[in-house]
């Protein structure tokens, strides 16, 4: 459409265009995005303030409370009086004669019927283990004291069928923990946590890493290796592996 203000056939110049543009809407200019109200941040901040103001109330109450509190010496007296007034099986009073020692020794050498007889024979070849009426067959067993067959004897290596399983324990008829008796190593269960365990079919333990974690979580205070079989990132805390 020919401009009415310009000569016919004249080249349309920028000036001509700008005059045309001035007569219409102003050119769009980029604007900053609108400031939406930060409701979440405001509410969170308000909650924190409320929590602090509540804490102020509690602290003021605590200061009032402590005005009427007894000094520590009264509490120390209560502790001392309690300790002295109560007997303690681990700190018995002295017995007057050696007959008592014989009594404890006799009691130690019969089947214990109560925890009160959880004593050990003094001056006995069975110094740290009670003499049992029945001993398991401890031939070749690593029992402490040759004539004193502790009840736990059967849980020791004498029952494990495989000499190569020195660290395995026995339970109810000598079964080692590991399903594969040829490989009883203490680290059997720990190795299940390694990522490579997933693809191993027969290893020393059944590495069915059934626990699925969607992501590694922060190492807890106890410094656990928190990443399981399908977790790609090992915790950077070197103590993680100490669990």
């Amino acid at each position, binding site marked *: 459409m020919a401009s009415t203000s310009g000569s016919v056939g004249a080249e349309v110049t920028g000036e001509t265009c700008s005059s045309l543009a001035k007569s219409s809407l102003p050119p769009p200019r980029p604007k900053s995005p609108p400031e939406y109200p930060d409701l979440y941040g*405001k509410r969170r901040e308000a909650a924190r303030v409320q929590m602090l103001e509540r804490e102020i109330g*509690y602290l003021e109450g605590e200061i009032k409370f402590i005005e009427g509190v007894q000094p520590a010496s009264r509490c120390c007296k209560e*502790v*001392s009086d309690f*300790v002295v007034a109560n007997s303690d099986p681990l*700190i018995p009073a002295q017995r007057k004669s050696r007959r008592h020692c014989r009594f404890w020794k006799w009691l130690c050498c019969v089947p214990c019927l109560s925890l009160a007889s959880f004593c050990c024979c*003094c001056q006995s070849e069975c110094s740290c283990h009670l003499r049992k009426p029945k001993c398991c067959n401890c031939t070749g067993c690593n029992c402490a004291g040759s004539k004193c067959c502790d009840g*736990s004897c059967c849980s020791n290596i004498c029952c494990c069928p495989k000499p190569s399983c020195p660290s395995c324990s026995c339970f*109810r008829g000598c079964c080692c923990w590991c399903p594969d008796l040829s490989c009883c190593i*203490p680290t059997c269960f720990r190795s299940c946590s390694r990522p490579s365990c997933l693809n191993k079919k027969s290893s020393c333990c059944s590495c069915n890493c059934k626990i699925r974690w969607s992501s590694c979580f922060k190492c807890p205070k106890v410094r656990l290796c928190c990443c399981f079989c399908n977790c790609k990132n090992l915790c950077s805390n070197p103590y993680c592996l100490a669990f």
Partner: protein
Amino acid sequence: MSVSELKERHAVATETVNNLRDRLRQRRLQLLDTDVAKYSVAQGRSPVKFGATDLVCCRTLLGHTGKVYSLDWTPERNRIVSASQDGRLIVWNALTSQKTHAIKLPCAWVMTCAFSPNGQTVACGGLDSVCSIFSLSSTADKDGTVPVSRILSGHRGYVSCCQYVPNEDTHLITSSGDQTCVLWDVTTGLKTSVFGGEFQSGHTADVLSVSISGSNPNWFVSGSCDTTACLWDTRAASRAVRTFHGHQGDVNTVKFFPDGYRFGTGSDDGTCRLYDLRTGHQLQVYQAHGDGGGKLPVTSIAFSASGRLLFAGYANNSTCYVWDTLLGEVVLDLGELQDSHKNRISCLGMSADGSALCTGSWDSNLKIWAFGGHRRVT
């Protein structure tokens, strides 16, 4: 109110809180006119002296194939449950050393275990963030797998400690890495109360340990990585009754004193402390000297029946100091006795009648210690 106004109020409130805490700390210092050790010395208390064979290892419980992390006694019947890195709970007859149950756990990363008051169920928890309940009357398959009776789920972090409420088989309390403690109804599996949390007054870091009062089961104390211990009343969960300051490191373990009005703590700062519940006073600090300046973290504690002895396990090979709580002195180290553990002692537990102490260790064993001689105490 605008965000900037809120931030200004926040700053003012923070300063007020700090000033009030300072005033409280100063006032408490004024009330600390003595401690238990000074008082006992002034009273002329004689020290406890142990002979070489007075406290001995009477039983070694063999069976776990990994580090033992937790143990608990039954209130009666002389049984112990232990939890280990090998992913199993084992129930032991403490007298005969025999295993009565070996439960393979669905999650091997267990951190805590507890016996119910009636001795018929055990609870455990760990990295799976749930507390699992097992009935000991359930039949295990040949792998030792026992079906879970109940799962208490709801924590958003690992379960570090669990304990049944005394004389209540239906309620237990857990502590967690999510900074809260929870009172559970085991029958329904639901939370009864939550103690602490993001916008509630309580711990501000992982909670590592709980101990429930035997004389008043509505009270329990918790220890946390925020270096404090808190006293809670289960009837009012909105905030801690009292917060106990003093430690300079994570509070790893808490245990009630036998009288029910005091409790002990063990911390990464290498000290054990005795606090008074009702006044909030710190009554005694038990700090070992030597071995790194007494900075060995304390992993677990237990009191003897009278409270005269405090057993404390430390984070090095087998050290377990026996403290005379009245005089504040170490009277024995179980780690130096015959048949002691070969690695760190991670958990301790006193039998209900106080006649035996059980220790659990990273050497995969549990040991039972009892009195083996006679001694005079005046």
